[in-house]
């Protein structure tokens, strides 16, 4: 409406002023070009990485076919020279999803406490601690796991459970596995510890982003503190919280060193709860240096390619959920 009248009417301060012609010409164009080039090069980089992995893995993928490679249950680089990725896919999916399951609610609780209940000084301390955990190199966490956590878990958790089961439910022992301390359970617990900071930080960001008037609307109805969180804060933040959890899952899927150090590294199914296992990153890092057979090397590359695709899917899902569940998009005043 306004631009209509401005177009036809007398010159005003705005439409009377002549902007620099060079600026008109170049300003937007240069900006657009820079953004497009930068954006395109990031996409090219990712595509290039995917292509290299695919290309290097193509020997193996051609040998077995993509689907059969994924479904293949045997990974034997020593005798039969047969390569199937299923044990590692299985190990990755189980450890990282269980880790998220363990980490999610404590992380959400810490985020809620730090954002809504804690006084500023305490919330500052919590945030710093969380960041500190996130900053510990995973190889350090791995060493701590080997020397402290795994022995402790073995003696105080796994052994009692194992002994109890042996007495009462001996049929379950194969599922439980050998409680040596290094295996799927330990790797999962360490993964959970490692993703808590991410889940917490992302959930807290989402909670902090809930507008003040949403909270006030709930307070004004006579809500208690917890009722405000349940009625106004969590529903509003659910998109960000869920997306954050899925991004944390992505981190768990890609985590390499700590898992490789603690999971026990066993290439053959079946995996058991306490027993040794392997994940996609752990088998790559463990076998890469020793892979002499070109089919072996190519199969490791193919696992890398599958990992890349899984990570891509997880991240896209997070983005989709964030968009789908998040509030805004101009809908709200």
């Amino acid at each position, binding site marked *: 409406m306004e631009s209509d009248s401005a177009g036809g009417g007398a010159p005003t301060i705005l439409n009377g002023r002549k902007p620099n012609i060079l600026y008109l010409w170049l300003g937007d164009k240069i900006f657009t070009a820079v953004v497009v080039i930068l954006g395109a090069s990031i996409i090219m980089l990712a595509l290039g990485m995917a292509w290299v992995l695919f290309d290097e893995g193509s020997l193996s993928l051609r040998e077995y076919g993509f689907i059969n490679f994924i479904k293949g249950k045997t990974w034997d680089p020593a005798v039969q020279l047969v390569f199937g990725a299923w044990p590692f896919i299985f190990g990755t999916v189980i450890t990282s999803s269980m880790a998220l399951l363990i980490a999610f609610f404590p992380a959400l609780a810490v985020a809620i406490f730090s954002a809504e209940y804690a006084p500023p000084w305490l919330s500052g301390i919590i945030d710093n601690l969380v960041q500190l955990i996130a900053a510990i190199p995973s190889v350090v966490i791995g060493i701590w796991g080997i020397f402290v956590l795994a022995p402790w878990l073995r003696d105080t958790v796994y052994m009692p459970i194992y002994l109890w089961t042996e007495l009462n439910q001996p049929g379950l022992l194969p599922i439980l596995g050998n409680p040596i301390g290094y295996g799927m359970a330990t790797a999962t617990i360490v993964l959970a510890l490692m993703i808590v900071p991410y889940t917490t930080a992302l959930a807290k960001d989402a909670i902090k982003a809930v507008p003040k008037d949403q909270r006030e609307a709930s307070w004004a109805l006579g809500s208690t503190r917890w009722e405000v969180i349940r009625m*106004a804060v969590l529903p509003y933040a659910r998109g960000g919280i869920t997306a954050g959890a899925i991004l944390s899952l992505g981190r768990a899927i890609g985590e390499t060193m700590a898992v490789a150090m603690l999971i026990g590294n066993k290439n053959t199914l079946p995996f058991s709860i306490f027993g040794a296992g392997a994940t996609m990153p752990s088998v790559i890092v463990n076998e890469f240096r020793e892979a002499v057979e070109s089919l072996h090397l190519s199969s490791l590359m193919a696992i890398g390619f599958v990992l890349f695709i899984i990570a891509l899917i997880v991240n896209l899902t997070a983005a989709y959920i964030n968009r789908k569940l998040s*509030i805004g998009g101009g809908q709200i005043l």
Partner: protein
Amino acid sequence: MEINIMKSKDLPEETLKTVHSNTENQKTVMKNRMETKNLTVKYGSIYGVKNISLPFQDKTVTALIGPSGCGKTTYLRALNRMHDLTREAKIEGEVLLDNKNIYDEDINPVTIRRKIGMVFQKPTPFPTMSIYDNVVAGLKLVGIRNRSLLDEVCEKALKQAALFDEVKDRLKTPAVSISGGQQQRLSIARALAVEPEVLLMDEPTSSLDPQATLRIEELIHVLKKDITIIIITHNMQQAARVSDKTAFFYVGDLIEAGDTNTIFTNPKEKQTEDYITGRFG
């Protein structure tokens, strides 16, 4: 749960009587439902409002008027302890509800806010909830789960807020799918559904069209038979139409308060007269 059914047929006569009802109300001796004594609100070291002493009689409508930034919202939010949630805000003085200071140690602010409802300057629907769930949100808080009662209250509150006809076929759709003005009326309905004893309204009609504004003003007339209402408005005609008492604020001070008729026809202070007649503000 006592529900005050309002018949919309009664409304037009009610409006016509507006001007006269102001004088009628003064005849009965009224007790103070609420009162502030030397109420000061500070944001850090800045004063929001200074030393406001003001009574609110039971079953009356008081209009708070004054130029933008003079502290009306600040004052209103002190009346149901909304400032508790703003870290930098400090309250001094007393706010009495039935002669009991609501800032006393032994008072639970949650109970206070259940009695003293509030409609905000901006619409604030809960975006993940349906229209229906928004209206009954306050009832669910106090544990009411009875479906037919919730239905009944929802319909009544929406009718009172002059929204029912527009949304009756889509009560289950998200509250954000309706227009800004409809969202504001939804916020009003949500505040009414819990049947507050005192209702604080911060420019409730600033985003509404004349028709909806009229309906809300009619609603205020009906509500005032039972409850005490304090309303902020920038619209002088509206203040004159709906209120029994008017209080004029200017840069954090209460300049003048009294019967609406007196304030509008014969103000004591020059500033009040200038503001009402539109010479500033």
